[in-house]
C-alpha cells in the first residue's frame, strides 16, 4: 500500500517538472502531446519496469503533460514570473 510517492523533480527554467516513476506506465501519451517536444524516455524505470519520462529546458510550463497523463504520474509547478 503506497500512500506516499517519491517524485523526481527537474528544476527547469519555467517550472518544476516532477515525474513519479512508481506511477508512470510508459505509455508515451505525454511525449506525443507536449507542444514543444521536450519530453523523452529516461533511464529511470517506471511502474511496469519500462522507461519513465524526463523533460528538458525547452519546457514552456503549459501543463498539458500533467493533464494528459492517465496515471497522474506528472506534475508541473509553474515558477512565478519575476515582477519588474
Amino acid at each position, binding site marked *: 500500500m503506497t500512500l506516499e510517492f517519491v517524485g523526481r523533480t527537474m528544476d527547469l527554467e519555467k517550472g518544476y517538472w516532477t515525474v513519479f516513476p512508481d506511477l508512470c506506465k*510508459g*505509455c*508515451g501519451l505525454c511525449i506525443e502531446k507536449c507542444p514543444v517536444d521536450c519530453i523523452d524516455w529516461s533511464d529511470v524505470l517506471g511502474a511496469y519496469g519500462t522507461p519513465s519520462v524526463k523533460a528538458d529546458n525547452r519546457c514552456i510550463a503549459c501543463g498539458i503533460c500533467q*493533464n494528459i497523463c*492517465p*496515471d*497522474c504520474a506528472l506534475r508541473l509547478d509553474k515558477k512565478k514570473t519575476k515582477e519588474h
Partner: protein
Amino acid sequence: MQLQPAMPRSWRVDTKPHKFCPGCGHGLILKCLGQAVDELGIEDRVVYGCDIGCSLLSWDFFNLDTVQTHHGRTTPVMTGIKRARPELICIAYMGDGGGYSIGVQHLVSSVHRNEKITVVLANNTQYAMTGGQMAPTTLPGQKTETTPYGRDPEVTGFPFQGPEMVSAIAREGAYVARGSISNMRQLTGYLKKALVNQIEGNGFSFVEALSACPTNWRTNASETWSFIDKEMHGHFKTGEFKTPGSGQGEVRADE
C-alpha cells in the same frame, strides 16, 4: 512529506497506480469524472457503480461508495439505489460492450422511464477485457479478433450511435452528450453538467466518452491519438445532443 501527485481529491491514492493498461482511456475519463465530482463537492453523496469489462477495474479507484455489477446492469442497480435514496448521486460507469450490446435493454428502459441517474459510457470500439472482439461500436474496416479482415457493415452493420439513440427516446429534462479524451476540458464540462442535471432532478443524464485501448488496438502513442482524432471522430460526433429545456425535439410534417 514530499511533493505528491496532482490527483483529483476523490481518487483513492492507496490504490494507485490503478489497474488499467498503459495509455488506457479509462484513466483519463475517470480523471475528468473525479475532477467533476471534486468541483461540485459531492464526494459524500456519490454512489459509483462500475460494470463488467475493463470498467470493473475501477472498483477501488475512487474514495467513493462503490458497487460493481455485470453486463449493463449497473444502470438498473443505480436506478434502485436512487429510488430508495433519492438524496444520493448515482453514477453508472460502463463500456460500450455492457451499455450498447449485452445490456442495451437496461439503458433503453432507464432512458424511457427518465430515471434520475447519470450514466457514463466509455467507447473504445471493441470488447477490450476479453481480448478485442468486435463490438457494436467497431468502425467499418476496423480489424478486431472477430473481424480479422476488417468490419464489413454489409454483414454486421455500422457503428452504434449511442447518444443519438438516447436523445431520440429521452424525455424533456434529459441531458445527453458525447465527449472525447482528446478534449478533456470539454469532457469534464459535460460530466459536470450531467451530474448537475441529476442533482437538480431534471431527468436522465448520459455522457459517452470516446476512449482508447492501445493494448487491443495494438497502437503506439502516436497511432493511438491519430486513431481517436482521425478515425473515431470521423464516425462519432462530439457535442451536446439534448439539454434540459430544449424541448422534445420537433418532428416536422412533410411540407
